[in-house]
């Protein structure tokens, strides 16, 4: 199923945040949303998952307008991974992932739900910490649990808000690799807001570059991430090289 964002605009106190944004994410594709702070990345994710109501335009999954879906119906199609967990009252990792089954079950959880949760824990490689307390695990492991929770919803579309921003080098690579595998295996369409240009260009199929609420450029990493676009969007002078995989790799020099 594909995610289509067409003509979405959003105002905050009559100040335009998003202006006529058009993005399409195909099945099994990872699209990264890049842009400086305040360019509208998070606002856009919020407009997609229904936390914010866009002023204009439509968001649809497989041709169906998300605005016309019931909240529970949408929860079966769309998984959201927050930047970090706000968890003051901790539960076990297994129960945290089980929360993702909420759209499917009533008050209790059945055998099938436990099966699904187990499969996902295994897919994410965190099955051995199933009964550990959620607040007793590392930031990287928490991020994996949050992704696992979103996957437990068996979604067609995955939204991720800076999934690597709180992680160390190793976990950044690990988490993005897992997202990549899951997207291909489960035929999910993933849209993720990112800050790290190099990680984004390495792990995404396509890049959407936002500038002041508008799509500045969109396409494969090589065509979008250029010296010129980084100067124009981020106001940064940078050298763009090519990494082993033929993807652009930038070395920032100075702010202009």
């Amino acid at each position: 199923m594909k995610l289509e964002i067409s003509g979405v605009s959003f105002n905050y106190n009559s100040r335009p945040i998003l202006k006529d944004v058009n993005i399409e994410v195909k099945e099994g594709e990872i699209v990264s949303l890049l842009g400086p702070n305040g360019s509208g990345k998070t606002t856009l994710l919020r407009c997609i998952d229904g936390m914010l109501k866009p002023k204009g335009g439509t968001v649809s999954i497989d041709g169906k307008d998300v605005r016309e879906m019931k909240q529970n119906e949408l929860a079966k199609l769309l998984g959201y991974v927050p930047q970090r967990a706000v968890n003051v009252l901790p539960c076990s990792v297994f129960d945290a992932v089980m929360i993702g089954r909420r759209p499917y079950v009533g008050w209790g959880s059945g055998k099938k739900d436990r099966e699904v949760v187990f499969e996902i824990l295994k897919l994410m490689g965190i099955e051995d910490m199933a009964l550990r307390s959620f607040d007793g695990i590392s930031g990287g492991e928490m991020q994996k649990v949050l992704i696992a929770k979103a996957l437990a919803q068996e979604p067609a579309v995955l939204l991720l808000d800076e999934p690597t921003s709180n992680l160390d080098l190793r976990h950044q690579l690990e988490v993005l690799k897992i997202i990549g595998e899951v997207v291909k295996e489960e035929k999910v369409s993933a849209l993720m807001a990112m800050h790290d240009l190099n990680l984004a260009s390495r792990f995404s199929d396509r890049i959407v570059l936002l500038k002041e609420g508008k799509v500045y450029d969109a396409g494969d990493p090589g065509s979008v991430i250029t010296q010129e676009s980084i100067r124009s969007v981020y106001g940064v002078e940078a050298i763009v090289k090519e990494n082993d995989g033929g993807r652009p790799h930038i070395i920032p020099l100075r702010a202009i």
Partner: protein
Amino acid sequence: MSMSIREIKGEIEERYAKYTARKFVILFALIASLIALAIAVTPLGAASLSVGDVFHSLFYRGSSRADIIIWQLRLPRIAMAIICGMGLALSGAVVQGVLHNPLASPFTLGVSSAAFFGGMIGGAFGVGMGLNVGFAFFFGMLALFLIYGISKRRGMTPETVILCGICLMYLFLALTSVAGMMGGAIGMSQILSGFLVSSSWDSVLTTFVFLIITFPLLMWCARDLNAMALGDDTATSVGINVKRTRMISMVLATLIVSSIVCFTGVIGFVCLISPFIARMVMGNDHRFIFPCSALIGALLLLGTDTLARTAMQPIEIPVGMIMTIIGVPFILYLAVKRSGYT
């Protein structure tokens, strides 16, 4: 050496089953303890009775002195202690779950004392218990919304929220005292610290009705409160109407507290300590925390009330005072322990 996937899966399933079974075992153990404690404390009191008297009276109710003492004095009071303990502890668990604040409770947020003030205002009109509870509910909600608004402000830590709550608590206790003096009430100190002395079957029935109606509804919210512990965004994304669940739970918790304080005054701490202990033994699943907290609350209040009526016979110590004497060290312990890792 490496286990097959099927084996690992079997092992986790088994461990998860055990983990869940353990919670049920704890609940049953608590129910058994509560029944045992209720039976054990019935003979205790100013008029000495034996366990035999109690059983005889329970099954062959006559009109002997023992029967009258048991049916008119002991049993309603024990029932009241159990129901109030359950209700207060349950509402504490709900408030903690909604605000994600382990120090929150209707007592420490000023909801109990606001409700008590309301109940007293209602009582001044002398229309009846229904109106009292109504007024109590109105003022309780007022306090809760005020606190909720404060807690939503930027930069509020759980501790500052509690500080504001305790200020509210003192405000309403002072207002209650002043109102009581104007109305010529005596024995204010006893009223203000909570009492179960004049429990009648009528008051038992009223509080029981409120508890029995709200409990299943709260259990229905419990699952969604679990998800809300991971943040409003996460909860919304799995299909939960966060605002509605929060509103329903807060209204129900306040309703329980209102129905209780009208009869007993402000019995503090039981609504703070019980959910805390429940969370320690049950983890963060509200479907287990709610019943567990209620049972611990019942045990705690029944125990302290027995102490209240027997420790200094024939003088009756207000149960709220004993609860405070037990509760304060507990809070201090919590404060010290929390400061260790924040």
